[in-house]
Structures are given as structure tokens and as C-alpha cells.
């Protein structure tokens, strides 16, 4: 494997582990300490240290080591985990994150923030016993220099609880370019060699001695927190022709048993033991091979392992009973393979081309009026549609990827603000396009911060208002008719209508004689340069933010709206399309131009003839429906035509009509962005290529309607005839 890839893999793994660690810490904070969570934290820190050690990223190893030592004391019950320690460990996690970033940026030899590290180390030191660590490396240098058996003083006095390693290197090891001494050196980077005995039994008389052969064996007592696989990995290069036997310390046996008991979904015996750390993958493989080698009287794996002293008997029996317990519960664990994003994108591009080419074929088939041909293309279209849907789901990821960072954010901010806030996350499994997940994080963060800062009151105010002392913040996501809805709700004081209006008038955003609906007023907070906080805190309130949030969401073809009840709370609702690549479109024609309306928005199509269509409002089944003539909006030349059609669209709670010349029907539109050159055109969201090769424009309906409404606002200075007039019956 090339080093860059290995480095990337390390960085990715470390990030995942840090997330796991953070989750476990937060879990302890809410639900109290459990050995499971503590073990999870320990394992995360430990694995990071181990992987970094392989690359000799010493800064991360040395720092993580201290964290790990503290965690080890927690695990052994020597120190109780408390609030202060949780905060400290969270900060340490952040610092490890910074070190991991440094690895990614290839600045791993520079300390990202030396001062912070000193502070953290000092705080960590407080949890460690005074004679914390024996200088392991120094001790080993001593062993290495003096040959022969030597007892090394144990400083902690815990020598009984050591790993025991029996090493019999193959005689060829030196010829293969490997020096046994270097393995011992490396071993000492993981712990302390307490006792080392050199076996000289195989040493031949001097006359027969081959200077290039290795004759020595070693018996080592080794004090380390490393797990079995880790220790075994030291000997990766010599494992094949040497005898390496690793016996766990006594305390480990108990640990294995407890780990096995906690395993969520055990599989086969060997797997259980490997995952519990009692056995390594390689040892298992060897044992299985041996097992298959015995043709008659195959022994069960467990018995074999005990016989060969690979695994102590109590561990095997614990694993066996655990396996039995769970045999019925077949694991539904999802299986994943990692695929490069670029490959996926390429596939989706190709599917896009396929959709366009398919539409072209359809067009020809329809023209040829050959029934069989038409039938064949029809069958292909159905398949293409399935392929398209399947390909698009490949890019879908659960929104939980974004949500998972919020527990920590909420915790930190609520402390900073001195408010008690509880976060409830629902719908984390709701899926959306991967490219959107990345762009959603910042806007959501901003909304959450705003809610916590401005929305949720301080504890005293809450109690005075008769609410529970703890504020509630809720993140929710769900699918609704072709889009994904993400809500951030709080049970705070709600938006203050009057304050917003006063501010907007002061800033000149609206005139005092406005006639705005409540929704329009709330929408004002998305205007650039708007902030209602009387006191500007360092979290929010600088007036940059909500307008950026809106811009970000709109760049994803989404929309954001605010619902608020004074004293009850505020909900910010973001509505996004599921994907950015291909949509179901509805083709319409104005003059000779084809336009595409996203099909999800289309409710129905009505013949405009026979309706009283004055004032750009029609009465549809007794309800007024404002509409816009695309011809007028786009300033296309008028033509002689016999009839017009009305396409009724709905987005969010609003309905409007679009008047067009002809309806052409449904079609799969592969979205081709128009690029930055056209970023100023709000009423068009993109383009697509039709079956005949022409380019058609995709309408951005919410913007288009909003724009029309603004035109009318600016003309009449009143909102009476606004297209945005809420359809009262649909809303209430």
C-alpha cells in the first residue's frame, strides 16, 4: 500500500474513532458512567495511539499515551470520572483531532498548539499517580546494551500482571535483513519490558557457529496496555518462520470475559475471541488451518485453543456461552464497501447521459409510429428510470452524519451561555444526497446557535415563564413529497414580531406603512444585515448569518422558513430537494421555448379558458389562486394562440399558477448547472438537455413567484395583491 493511502486511512480511522470517543463521553455525561462507554473511550484512544505509532507520529503517540493512562486508571476504578474530567477528555479529543489534522496537512512534526497541550497535559497529570510512568525507552536501551539475562527494576511494583512473550526467532532472521533487537526496541515503545531472559540453549559450539544465524530465544515479561493484536503486530515481519507466543496477563483474562459479555452481536467462536482481543486474526487462522489438517477426530476450535495455550480456558467458555445466547439473534449488520466518490459521480454522469439518450430514442420511436419500436423503447425507459433511481440512492447518506456533531456543540454552547439545554435528535436515518450533507453543516450550525443564544431563555426566565428549567432543542428530519425537510425547533421565547418590525423599519428594510403577514415578517430576519439581539454575543448577533444561511440553502435549490409562537418557541424549517443531479420534470411550452417545472411541485393542470382570469387571479374550486404568465415574466413576444393552460404548483404552504401555451408532459431532466455566469438569474435554477438535443431551462418556481410578488410590491407599495398571499384554507 502506498504511504499516502496509508496516511489517509489513518486520518480517516482516527477521525471516526474520535467521533466514537466523543459520543461515549457525552453518553457518560447524560446517562452516567458505564464500563461499556469507558471501554469504548479507552479503545478509541488506544487504537489511535497504536496506529500513529506505526507511522512514528510521535506527537500524537506521546499525547494520546497520557490520555490513555488516565483512562486506564478510570477503567481500573482508581479514579472516578467526573464532570471536570469529561470536559478535559473532550478537550483532549479535540486536541487529538488537531494533531490528526496536522497529519493530514503533513505538518505532523509541528505542535498545532503547544501552549494548549501543556495545559491539557498538566490537567491530565493531576489524575495520574506521582510516579506515573517508568522511562520505558531508557530501560530498554539498557537491556539492549548489556547482553544476557537481566532483571529490570519495576517502579510501579505491578510486575505480576504482565504479558508473557516467548520469542524464538528463526535462525534465518538476520539473513532476511531483520534484527531481533529492533523488534524489542519497538516493543518497548508500547510498554515496559519488565523482565527479559535470553535463551542460549540453541547456541552451538563456537567452531560451528554461523555468524549470520540467530540462535537466541527470549522470554519476556512485558507491562503494557496494548492489546494482543497490537503486541502481535510488532512481530508482523517475522511471524511466518518464527515462533511467537503471547500469553495475556491475568487481569486481561477478566477483561476479555467482560468484553465478550458486552459484545452486541457475536458471530462464530473464533470471531468472538478475535474481537474481544483474546486471540489475534493470525493465530486464529493458524489454528483453523491446523484444525482442517487433522483429518480424523477434529477437535472443536475452543478445545484446540486451550490446548495450545493460545487462549485461557475461562475466556473460551465465556465466549462459548455468549455465542449460544445470541445464536437466534441473527445479525442484521449492514455490509459496506468503500467506493471512491469520483467513481460514483462518473456513474451518475453516465446515467444522466443514458437518460438523455433514452429520451432521444423515445422521440424517434414516437415519430416513426412503429408500435413494436415504441414498445421496446418504452421497456428501456422503464429500466433506465430504475437505474437512475438506484444510481442516485448510491449517493444518499443518512443526515445523521451532520446531526452527530451537534450533541457536543449544544453541550459546549449551553455551558458557555450558562443555560440548561437538552438536545433531542430524531430522524437521523433520513437520507439525502451526499453533496448536500457537506453543505448543510454550516447553515444548521448557525441556526442551532441562534436558537440557543436568542431563542431559549436563561433558566430563571424559563422558570418565571412557567416552563421547565431545561430548555429543549430538537433536530428533526423527514421525507415529504420528493424533498427532505430538516427542522430545528426550540421551546424558547419565540420570535418577537414587534421587535423584528421595528428593527426592519429602522434599517430601512420595510416602510412603516407595511402590510406584511406574520410569515413575511419572520422572513425579514434572513435579510442581510439583520440582527435582533440587543446584546451582541460572541456566538451570534453580528448580523451576518441568517442571510448566509438562506443563501446556502438556496444554492442547494432549497428553501427555509420560520414558524414561531411567542412564548412557545421557534421552528426553522429547511426544505431541500433529495438530489441535485436528476429530477422528474414537467415540460411546458411558451412560444417556441420549452421550460421544465420540477414535477414534485406540480399539483394539477387546468385549461385557463372559461376562467375569469383578470387581475392575475383565478378562482379555482372556490379558492383564489394567484398566477403569473410566463410570457409576460420573460418578456417573450406575444403570439396568436387559441388557448392557454394553467399549471398549479405548490411549494411549502404556498400555491400559485403558471400560465403556459402548451403542456408537453413528464420527462426526466438531467440537471446541467448554468454556472456562475448566470448566478444573477433567480427565476431559473438550471438547464437540461431535451431528447432532440435542445437546451431547456428549469424554472425555479419559488423564486419566480417571489420575484413576481416583489415586482408587484414595488409597484403598488402594498402587499394586497401579492402572489405570496397565503392560501388561508390550506394553511389553517
Amino acid at each position, binding site marked *: 500500500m502506498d504511504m499516502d493511502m496509508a496516511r489517509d486511512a489513518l486520518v480517516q480511522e482516527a477521525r471516526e474513532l474520535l467521533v466514537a470517543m466523543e459520543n461515549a463521553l457525552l453518553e457518560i455525561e447524560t446517562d452516567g458512567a458505564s464500563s461499556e462507554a469507558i471501554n469504548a473511550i479507552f479503545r478509541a484512544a488506544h487504537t489511535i495511539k497504536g496506529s500513529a505509532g506505526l507511522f512514528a507520529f510521535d506527537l500524537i503517540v506521546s499525547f494520546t499515551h497520557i490520555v490513555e493512562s488516565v483512562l486506564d486508571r478510570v477503567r481500573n476504578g482508581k479514579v472516578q470520572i467526573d464532570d471536570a474530567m469529561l470536559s478535559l477528555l473532550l478537550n483532549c479529543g479535540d486536541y487529538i483531532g488537531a494533531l490528526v489534522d496536522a497529519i493530514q496537512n503533513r505538518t505532523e512534526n509541528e505542535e498545532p498548539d503547544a501552549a494548549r497541550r501543556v495545559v491539557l497535559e498538566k490537567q491530565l497529570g493531576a489524575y495520574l499517580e506521582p510516579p506515573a510512568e517508568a522511562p520505558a525507552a531508557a530501560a530498554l536501551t539498557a537491556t539492549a546494551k548489556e547482553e544476557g539475562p537481566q532483571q529490570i527494576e519495576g517502579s510501579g511494583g505491578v510486575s505480576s500482571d504482565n504479558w508473557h512473550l516467548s520469542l524464538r526467532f528463526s535462525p534465518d532472521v538476520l539473513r532476511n535483513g531483520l534484527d531481533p533487537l529492533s523488534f524489542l526496541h519497538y516493543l518497548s515503545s508500547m510498554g515496559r519490558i519488565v523482565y527479559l531472559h535470553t535463551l542460549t540453549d540453541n547456541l552451538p559450539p563456537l567452531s560451528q557457529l554461523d555468524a549470520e544465524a540467530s540462535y537466541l530465544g527470549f522470554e519476556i515479561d512485558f507491562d503494557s496496555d496494548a492489546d494482543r493484536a497490537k503486541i502481535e503486530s510488532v512481530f508482523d515481519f517475522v511471524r511466518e518462520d518464527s515462533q511467537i507466543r503471547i500469553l495475556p496477563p491475568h487481569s486481561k483474562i477478566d477483561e476479555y470475559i467482560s468484553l465478550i459479555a458486552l459484545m452486541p452481536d457475536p458471530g462464530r467462536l473464533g470471531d468472538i475471541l478475535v474481537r474481544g482481543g483474546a486471540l489475534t486474526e493470525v493465530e486464529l487462522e493458524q489454528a483453523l488451518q491446523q484444525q482442517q489438517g487433522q483429518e480424523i477426530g477434529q477437535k472443536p476450535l475452543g478445545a484446540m485453543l486451550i490446548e495450545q495455550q493460545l487462549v485461557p480456558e475461562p475466556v473460551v467458555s465465556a465466549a462459548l456461552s455468549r455465542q449460544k445466547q445470541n445464536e437466534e439473534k441473527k445479525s442484521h449488520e449492514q455490509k459496506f464497501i468503500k467506493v471512491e466518490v469520483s467513481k460514483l459521480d462518473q456513474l451518475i454522469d453516465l446515467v444522466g447521459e443514458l437518460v438523455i439518450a433514452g429520451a432521444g430514442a423515445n422521440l424517434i420511436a414516437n415519430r416513426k409510429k412503429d408500435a413494436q419500436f415504441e414498445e421496446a423503447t418504452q421497456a428501456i425507459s422503464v429500466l433506465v428510470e430504475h437505474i437512475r433511481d438506484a444510481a442516485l440512492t448510491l449517493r444518499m447518506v443518512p443526515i445523521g452524519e451532520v446531526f452527530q456533531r451537534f450533541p457536543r456543540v449544544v453541550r459546549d454552547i449551553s455551558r458557555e451561555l450558562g443555560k440548561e439545554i437538552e438536545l433531542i435528535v430524531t430522524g437521523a436515518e433520513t437520507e439525502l444526497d451526499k453533496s448536500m450533507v457537506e453543505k448543510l453543516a454550516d447553515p444548521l450550525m448557525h441556526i442551532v446557535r441562534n436558537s440557543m443564544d436568542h431563542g431559549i431563555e436563561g433558566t430563571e426566565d424559563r422558570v418565571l415563564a412557567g416552563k421547565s428549567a431545561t430548555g429543549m432543542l430538537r433536530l428533526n428530519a423527514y421525507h415529504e413529497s420528493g424533498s427532505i425537510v430538516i427542522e430545528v425547533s426550540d421551546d424558547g421565547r419565540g420570535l418577537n414580531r414587534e421587535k423584528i418590525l421595528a428593527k426592519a423599519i429602522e434599517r430601512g428594510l420595510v416602510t412603516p406603512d407595511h402590510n406584511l403577514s406574520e410569515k413575511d415578517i419572520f422572513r425579514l430576519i434572513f435579510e442581510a444585515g439583520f440582527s435582533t439581539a440587543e446584546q451582541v454575543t460572541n456566538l451570534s448577533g453580528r448580523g451576518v448569518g441568517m442571510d448566509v444561511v438562506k443563501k446556502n440553502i438556496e444554492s442547494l435549490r432549497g428553501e427555509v422558513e420560520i414558524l414561531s409562537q411567542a412564548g412557545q418557541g421557534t421552528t426553522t424549517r429547511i426544505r431541500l430537494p433529495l438530489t441535485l443531479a436528476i429530477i422528474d420534470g414537467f415540460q411546458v411550452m411558451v412560444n417556441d421555448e420549452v421550460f421544465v417545472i420540477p414535477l414534485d411541485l406540480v399539483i394539477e393542470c387546468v385549461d385557463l379558458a372559461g376562467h375569469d382570469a383578470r387581475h*392575475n387571479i383565478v378562482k379555482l374550486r372556490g379558492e383564489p389562486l394567484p398566477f403569473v404568465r410566463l410570457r409576460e415574466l420573460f*418578456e417573450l413576444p406575444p403570439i396568436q394562440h387559441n388557448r392557454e393552460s394553467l399549471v398549479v404548483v405548490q411549494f411549502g404552504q404556498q400555491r400559485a399558477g403558471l400560465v403556459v401555451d402548451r403542456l408537453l408532459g413528464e420527462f426526466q431532466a438531467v440537471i*446541467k448547472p448554468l*454556472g456562475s455566469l*448566470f448566478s*444573477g438569474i433567480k427565476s431559473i435554477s438550471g438547464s437540461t438537455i431535451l431528447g432532440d438535443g435542445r437546451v431547456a431551462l428549469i424554472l425555479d418556481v419559488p423564486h419566480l413567484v417571489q420575484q413576481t410578488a416583489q415586482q408587484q410590491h414595488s409597484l403598488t407599495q402594498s402587499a394586497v395583491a401579492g402572489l405570496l398571499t397565503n392560501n388561508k384554507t390550506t394553511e389553517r
Partner: protein
Amino acid sequence: MSNLPATAASSRLQGAEQPGTQQFLTFTLSSELFAIPIEHIREIIEFGGLTEIPMLPPFLRGVINLRGAVVPVVDLAARFGRNVTEIGRRTCIVILEVEQENQMLALGIIVDAVNEVLSVEPGQIEPRPSFGAKIRADFIDGMISLGERFVIALDIQQVLSVDEMATLIGMNTNEELAAAPA
């Protein structure tokens, strides 16, 4: 990159460190001759298949489908502040590549006719005049002298500056917004 001062670009064009001939494509625009360095040009296609986009300033004629990619088409004459190009028998779209934020962006320009490819010696290129040409000075990279007459070599990064054009488009739609009848 698109905002590089034109002088820097012209010094590259006349650069002493790069002696040797340069190749330019010449084309006609309302009976005037212009030239573009050949390395900017991706291909030349017949005019057609243009989709107009509403509410655009006149210099942006619309978009075309270039083998699956949607490419904006600029009316060069309108961009120079003249009348919109009349489409004739020899009207072509020249597809160019311009750099924007380190990405190559394909753009088409409408020209009345494409003429020839010129090989130009460095000595043939004169610095741009401070005035006298009928187009914006920063659009001109240099003057190629061809015996008795000059051909204007265009600074494509300036002429097709995406930032500038996007700003103009934004302004145009906003004006329409304010002026359009309901």
C-alpha cells in the same frame, strides 16, 4: 486570474523570454478584423441550436448544447457595446476556454465569419494604443501589424471576464425587476 491587469497579459504576449512565432485565429465582426491566440480556442461550430434565456443583457445570447455540456454564448459585438450580431450564412460560434477560479470554463462567441490562422512574429506585435480603437482599451492585448493595416488581438480573459459579465447580468435582471410591469 480574469482580473489580471491587461498590461501583464500583454507583456506575456510580447515577452522577450518567449521568442518565436505565435498563432492567432482572425475573424470578422461587423467587417472589422480581430484576432485571438489559438491556444484559447477549442473548436469552431456552425451557428444554431441556441436556447435563449429570458431577462439577459443583449451580449449574452443564450446557451447551446455542446455534446452534452451546456455552454453560454456571448455576442461579441454586443459585448463591445455595438448592435446585436445579425445571424447570417457565415455566422459561427467559436468555442473558447477561459480560466475562472482555476477552472477552465467553455464559452462560445458569435462572430460574423472566421478568416484564417496567422503566424505572427514577436516583432509584428505592437503595444495597444491608449486611445483610438473603438473598443474598450482593456479588451485589447496588442496590435498585430499586417503590412498596411492592424488587427486587434483581444485579451480574452478581459473580454470574457466571468465576474464582470455575471455582475452585468445581475444588474440587468434587477433593473428589469424594478421596471417591469406587473
